[in-house]
C-alpha cells in the first residue's frame, strides 16, 4: 500500500528570505513585487502578519499600518529554489521526493517510516528538523497525494496521519478548495451552497461534469484514490544505491570507514548477483547541520570487489569533514557495467592478473588525478607523431601491427628542436650540427628517409630524416624540412635520440 506525505510551508517565502538574511530576524519585513504599476505584498513575516499586514495588500497601505516595515524585492524563482533544496534534503528520509509548487513538497514514504519507529515519529522528526532550519510546516500522511495535500492545508492538526479508513471521513468534512480546484470552480460551488466535499461527493458524476467540468471529477478521483497520480521525483531513482542511517552521529575516521565498508559489502553483494561491476561510484555523507559532502571514484575495469573499492575511497576520506557528526551515509554506483569474467584476459597469455593491473591504475588515478595513464596502439602512418595513438580503453586491442622495418628512435622529442647544421651539398647528410650550444661532429650517417605530410590530414612540408652518429658514438635523428630551393638555407631539426 502506498503512503504519501505532503509538507506545506505556509510562510515559505518569508522564512526562506529570513534564512538567507539572518540580520532581518528582529525587524518587520514584507516581500513585494510590482503589479499593475504598484507594489503588492507577496509574502510577509509572521510578526508583520500579526500587525494586520496580509498577502495581496499594497505596500503603501502596509506602510500606513506599520511605518518602519522593511520592503524586500520579490525573487520569482526563489520558491522553486528553496523547495528543490529542501526536496534534496528530504532524500535522507525517502528516496522519492518531489516539489509541489508554490509552497509544498510531496514525498513517497512507502516502507520508510518504520525505520523511525512509526509514521507519527517520522513526521515529527521531519517537522522538528525543518523547524530547526526556521521553517513552519504542516505535514500530513495519507494514501493519496490529494488527501495528504488537503489535510496539510485544511486539516486541524500540524501533523495529520490518516489511515485508509480515516482518510475518507476526514476529506468529507473539508471545504471544496481542499481538492486543489481552480478558483472559479470553488466560487461556483460556494455560490451553490456546497460548503464541504461531503455535500457533493454523492451527486451523479454526469451532473458534476456538466456544471463544473472534468477538472473537479479528476481531482476528486485523485483525492479518493480512484485514479492514479504520478509523482515526478526530484532525483530519478538510482538502482545501485545503499543507505546507512546512523543512530548516533559519526565523527571519527574509523566510523566513516566502517560505514563505507558496510555499504560496499552490501552493494557488491548485489552487483555480484547481477553480474555487474562499478565503473564510477559516489559516497555521500549527510551531516547533522544539513551539509552534504561527497567523494567520487572511478575504475578502469568494472569492479565488484569491496576491498579494492574501499582502497580507492580510502585515499579520499580525508576530504570529508564530519564537524558535529554524520548521520546518514549513501553509497551510489553512478556507472555500472557488465563485469568481465576472470577468464577474459586483457592481453592474451599475460602473466599479470588484469584485475590486479586495473586496480593499480585505479589507485594511481585515484590519488594522482585522471589522465596520467597512457597506453598506445599502432596506427598506419609513417609520420612519426601519427604512427601511434592513445588507447581509449584498457582492454582495447591493436588493429594493426607495430612496424620494425624502419629504424625508429627510442626517445622522441614532442616538439622537434631546431639545430644549426653544416652539410657539404644540399641533399647530403650534415658534417656537424650544433644543439644547445654543443657541437657534434658526424662520423656516420644513414638516410635520407623522406616522410611526406599526409595532405588529407594536415598541410605542410615533407621531412628528410637522417640517422647520424657523432664522434663519441651518440646517435641522433635529424631531419631537414622541405625542398631545397637554392636561395634560403634549410632548416634542420633534432627530433629524437637513438639508443
Amino acid at each position, binding site marked *: 500500500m502506498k503512503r504519501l506525505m505532503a509538507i506545506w510551508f505556509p510562510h515559505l517565502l518569508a522564512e526562506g528570505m529570513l534564512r538567507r538574511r539572518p540580520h532581518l530576524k528582529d525587524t518587520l519585513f514584507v516581500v513585494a513585487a510590482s503589479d499593475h504599476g504598484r507594489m503588492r505584498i507577496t509574502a510577509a513575516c509572521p510578526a508583520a502578519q500579526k500587525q494586520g499586514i496580509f498577502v495581496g495588500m499594497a505596500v503603501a497601505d502596509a506602510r500606513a499600518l506599520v511605518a518602519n516595515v522593511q520592503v524586500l524585492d520579490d525573487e520569482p524563482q526563489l520558491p522553486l529554489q528553496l523547495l528543490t533544496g529542501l526536496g534534496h534534503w528530504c532524500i535522507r528520509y525517502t528516496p522519492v521526493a518531489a516539489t509541489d509548487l508554490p509552497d509544498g513538497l510531496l514525498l513517497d514514504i512507502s516502507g520508510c517510516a518504520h525505520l523511525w519507529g512509526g509514521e507519527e515519529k517520522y513526521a515529527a522528526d521531519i517537522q522538528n528538523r525543518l523547524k530547526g532550519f526556521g521553517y513552519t510546516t504542516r505535514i500530513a500522511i495519507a494514501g493519496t497525494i490529494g488527501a495528504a495535500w488537503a489535510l496539510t492545508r485544511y486539516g486541524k492538526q500540524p501533523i495529520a496521519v490518516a489511515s485508509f479508513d480515516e482518510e475518507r471521513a476526514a476529506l468529507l468534512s473539508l471545504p471544496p478548495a481542499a481538492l486543489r480546484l481552480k478558483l472559479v470552480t470553488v466560487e461556483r460551488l460556494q455560490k451553490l451552497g456546497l460548503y464541504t466535499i461531503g455535500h457533493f461527493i454523492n451527486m451523479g458524476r454526469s451532473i458534476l461534469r456538466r456544471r463544473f467540468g472534468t477538472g473537479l471529477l479528476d481531482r476528486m478521483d485523485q483525492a479518493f484514490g480512484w485514479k492514479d497520480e504520478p509523482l515526478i521525483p526530484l532525483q530519478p531513482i538510482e538502482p545501485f544505491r545503499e543507505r546507512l542511517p546512523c543512530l548516533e552521529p559519526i565523527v571519527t575516521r574509523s566510523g566513516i570507514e566502517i560505514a563505507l565498508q558496510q555499504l560496499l559489502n552490501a552493494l557488491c553483494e548485489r552487483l555480484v548477483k547481477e553480474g555487474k561491476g562499478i565503473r564510477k561510484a559516489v559516497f555521500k555523507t549527510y551531516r547533522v547541520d544539513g551539509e552534504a559532502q561527497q567523494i567520487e571514484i572511478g575504475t578502469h575495469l568494472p569492479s565488484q570487489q569491496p576491498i579494492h573499492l574501499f582502497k580507492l575511497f580510502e585515499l579520499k576520506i580525508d576530504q570529508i569533514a564530519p564537524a558535529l557528526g554524520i548521520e546518514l551515509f549513501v553509497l551510489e554506483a553512478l556507472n555500472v557495467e557488465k563485469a568481465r569474467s576472470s577468464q577474459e584476459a586483457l*592481453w*592474451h*597469455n*599475460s*602473466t*599479470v*592478473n588484469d584485475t*590486479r*593491473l586495473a586496480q*593499480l*591504475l585505479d*589507485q*594511481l588515478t585515484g*590519488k*594522482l588525478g585522471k589522465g*596520467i*595513464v*597512457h*597506453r*598506445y*596502439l*599502432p596506427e598506419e602512418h609513417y609520420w*612519426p607523431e601519427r*604512427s*601511434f595513438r592513445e*588507447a581509449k580503453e584498457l582492454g582495447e*586491442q*591493436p588493429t594493426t601491427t*607495430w*612496424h*620494425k622495418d624502419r*629504424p*625508429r*628512435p*627510442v*626517445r*622522441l*622529442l*614532442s616538439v622537434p628542436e631546431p639545430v644549426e647544421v653544416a652539410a657539404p651539398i644540399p641533399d*647530403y*647528410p650534415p*658534417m656537424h650540427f650544433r644543439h644547445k650550444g654543443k657541437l657534434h661532429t*658526424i*662520423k*656516420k*650517417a*644513414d*638516410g*635520407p628517409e623522406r616522410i611526406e605530410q599526409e595532405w588529407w590530414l594536415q598541410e605542410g612540408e615533407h621531412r628528410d630524416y637522417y*640517422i*647520424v*652518429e657523432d664522434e663519441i*658514438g*651518440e*646517435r*641522433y635523428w635529424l631531419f631537414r624540412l622541405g625542398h631545397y630551393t637554392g636561395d634560403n638555407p634549410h632548416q634542420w631539426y633534432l627530433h*629524437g*635520440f*637513438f*639508443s
Partner: protein
Amino acid sequence: MDGVQKDIVARLQQDILRLQGQRPANDPLAGKVELGPVLDAFPQQVFPTGAVHEYISGSPAATAATSGFIASILGSLMQNGGSCVWIGPEKIIFPPGLKAFGIEPDRVLFIHLKKEKDICWAMETALQVEGLAGVVSELPDLNFTVSRRLQLAVEKSGVTGFVLRQQPRKLHPTACVGRWQISSLASYHPDEMPGIGFPCWNVELQKIRGGKPGSWQLVWMDGHFLALPDTSLISSQTLLRKIG
C-alpha cells in the same frame, strides 16, 4: 678446496643472498635475461630479477642509450606475455622505437607525473603488483629511504624495478642491488658496411650486490647482446654514406 667445501661455500652464498632480499635462482623469470659477458658479474651468473637497479646517465643521448639497454632487458622479461609500467615526467619515449628491443609497445603502460614525490609513490605502488614484468621510472634523485622502500616492495612481489637517473644532483648510497652507467659507442657492423650499424654501448656496472663490478663493451645484434669485437674500435674516419 675440495668438493665438499665448495658445496658448503655455495650454499652459504645462497643463504647470504636470500638474507639480503634477493631471490634464489629458481625464479621463473631468472635466466631469461641474456646479457652475454656481463652475466659473469652477477651472483650465480643470473641477472638479479625481483630487485631494483639504478642507471645513471649524464646527457639526453646517454639517457636514450640507457633507455635502450633497459628496454632490451624488459623485452626479455616480457617474453612470456607480461606487461610493464614506465613512469616519467613527460611523453618522451617513442612507443614504436621499443619494438626493436622485443617489447610489444601496447603492453607498456606509460604514466606521466610531474612531481618526484608522486613518481616515487607510483613506482612503489606499481612494484607491489605481482606479475608485472618490470617497472621503470625516470627519477633523477633517489635517496636511501626511497630506495629501501622500493627494495622492500620488490622483495614481496618479485617485480624488477629500474630507476633511470638522468643528471642526478648527488649520488648517495642507495639500497639498490646494482648501479649501472651506460654510454653510447660507435655503432658496429660485422662487414664494415657504410652507414649506421648495430648499436653499441659501454656498459659499466659500478656496484652489484654479491657480484663483481666491471665494464664491458656490448653490441645489440638481432635481439642478443654480444661482446664488441676489438677490430671495430678502429672505425674508418671518413664520412660514409649508405647508397640508397
